[in-house]
């Protein structure tokens, strides 16, 4: 049996190495398939956002339909630092992450008693509040035009300067490092005793409660962590675009993230990244052909949900297991 376990963990390690290798080498193999480096950067950031949504959805069993709010606050926070306060990329990321994460922590405390559809509805409502603030408060946020101009700043690493503004490949690797740090933190938490209480709540809230887990507290912590990851992804997104857009806070953006997570496979750790790859690449190609690209994404989503209820990655894993 221990051989079986070793086989299983060996497989996981091999998959991890393969994923990392593919990401590290992406600037070299993507152009061969007609891709370009900036597309890879977008995939990483949106994939991180989808994984953050799934941290809550897939591993705690709580569906937030307003997570774009924390993503958007992260983007505006980062952008405002760069535009108004200091020309520092790390400071922008830090500020954006804190702003979105703390906002999520405060609002999360108000809603953790809600469950299921009610929780989803309340998160939509809160998300829309932030959307309208960003949309209406033109003097600060730039309103409908978005927040601009600001630019991500080259990184000064003591001995050398990494020009992430003009060198797309350098920026890709910068985002990849940021991505790996966040994903490692997520994986670490999910493997901890706290992470297992999240699974317990997902699996059976009543049993969790009668094991002595204060369910509301644990959901709040998981929600807050997820908001911090989300805001961090949002900060990076502001750097990707050199622009923060009120539509980044809209509930339809939240819906896109949920769609990526569900399409990729919400019970698997890497599923949402696969979902983001499919979503972003599909969007990139189809939107160059027709402006009605969302119809095709929607169609694809329906197909996946109907025929692969465990998502694309869940389906692939099942086939391999069989």
């Amino acid at each position, binding site marked *: 049996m221990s051989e079986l376990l070793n086989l299983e963990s060996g497989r996981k390690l091999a998959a991890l190495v393969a994923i990392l290798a593919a990401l590290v080498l992406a600037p070299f193999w993507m152009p061969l398939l007609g891709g370009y480096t900036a597309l890879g950067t977008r995939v990483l950031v949106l994939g991180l956002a989808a994984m953050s949504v799934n941290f809550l959805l897939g591993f705690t069993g709580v569906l937030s339909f307003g997570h774009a709010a924390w993503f958007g606050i992260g983007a505006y926070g980062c952008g405002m630092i760069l535009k108004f306060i200091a020309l520092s990329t790390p400071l922008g990321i830090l500020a954006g992450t804190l702003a979105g994460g703390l906002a999520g922590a405060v609002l999360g405390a108000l809603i953790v008693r809600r469950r299921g559809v009610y929780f989803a509805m309340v998160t939509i409502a809160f998300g829309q509040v932030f959307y309208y603030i960003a949309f209406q408060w033109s003097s600060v946020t730039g309103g409908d035009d978005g927040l601009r101009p600001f630019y991500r700043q080259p990184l000064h690493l003591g001995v050398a300067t990494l020009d992430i503004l003009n060198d797309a490949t350098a920026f890709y690797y910068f985002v990849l490092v940021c991505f790996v740090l966040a994903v490692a933190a997520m994986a670490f938490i999910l493997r901890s*005793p706290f992470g*297992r209480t999240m*699974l317990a709540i997902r699996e059976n809230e009543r*049993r969790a409660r009668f094991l*002595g887990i204060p369910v509301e507290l644990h959901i709040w912590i998981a929600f807050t962590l997820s908001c911090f990851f989300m805001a961090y992804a949002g900060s990076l997104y502001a750097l990707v675009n050199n622009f923060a857009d009120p539509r980044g806070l809209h509930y339809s953006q939240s819906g896109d993230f949920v769609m990526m997570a569900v399409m990729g496979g919400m019970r698997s750790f890497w599923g949402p990244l696969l979902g983001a790859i499919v979503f972003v690449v599909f969007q990139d190609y189809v939107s160059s052909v027709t402006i009605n690209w969302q119809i095709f994404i929607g169609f694809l989503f329906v197909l996946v949900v109907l025929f692969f209820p465990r998502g694309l990655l869940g389906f692939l894993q099942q086939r391999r297991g069989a």
Partner: protein
Amino acid sequence: MSLLQVKNVSKNFGSLLAVNDVSMTVEPGELRAVIGPNGAGKTTFFNLISGFLTPSAGRIIFDGDDVTHLLPARRVWRGIARTFQITEVFPELTIRENLRIAVEVAGGYRLRMWQSRDADSEVRASVVDLLEMSGLTEKADRLVGELAHGDQRATEIMMALALKPRLLLLDEPTAGMGDQETYDITQLIRKLHRERKLTIVLIEHDMRVVFHLADRIMVLDQGKFLAEGTPQEIAANEAVQAAYLGKVAA
């Protein structure tokens, strides 16, 4: 001192009086069965003790402290663990993972986002002990949702036991089981009672199980206290016979 004192508790749902002025005292080390015809209020009574419901009237004293209005999780921290009539486990996790969560919560690790090697191996060892005691070792790495009902129930009991409770509440532990499963679970409960000196209160329909296990029996009927005594006394009690046989006659 008595471990559990339930004093004159009542619970009504609207105009339905599910539990009507019932009292019960359980001594440390005792195995108490609560029996009664369907609709007697047994499960509601259990829910009041475990904190799933709060009484409309009356008090619940556990180990000298009033726990009447404590939240379920807090009652667990004080040492009251329970199982449910319809088994409540974590179906998409393995038995080992189910038990591990219970052991970690009981060990006070539930908020830790990292775990030292020592603490981790301690937890693993406790899980192995629980598996061995329950005879589930061979199935430890299978998903609980895929197992037979009896194994799921045993997993649930072992999860409750992992909490190191001072009072274990079992709601119909043999419900829906075949003869062999019923026998196995009965043996497991007997072992916990005899070897671990665990105080247990259980609801049970199967009279063979009740008379085999219980030190004392309390009988409820239509939400009210009907009788209490040793198995021999209860078997000879006319009011109890009337309550059960009356159902059949009617």
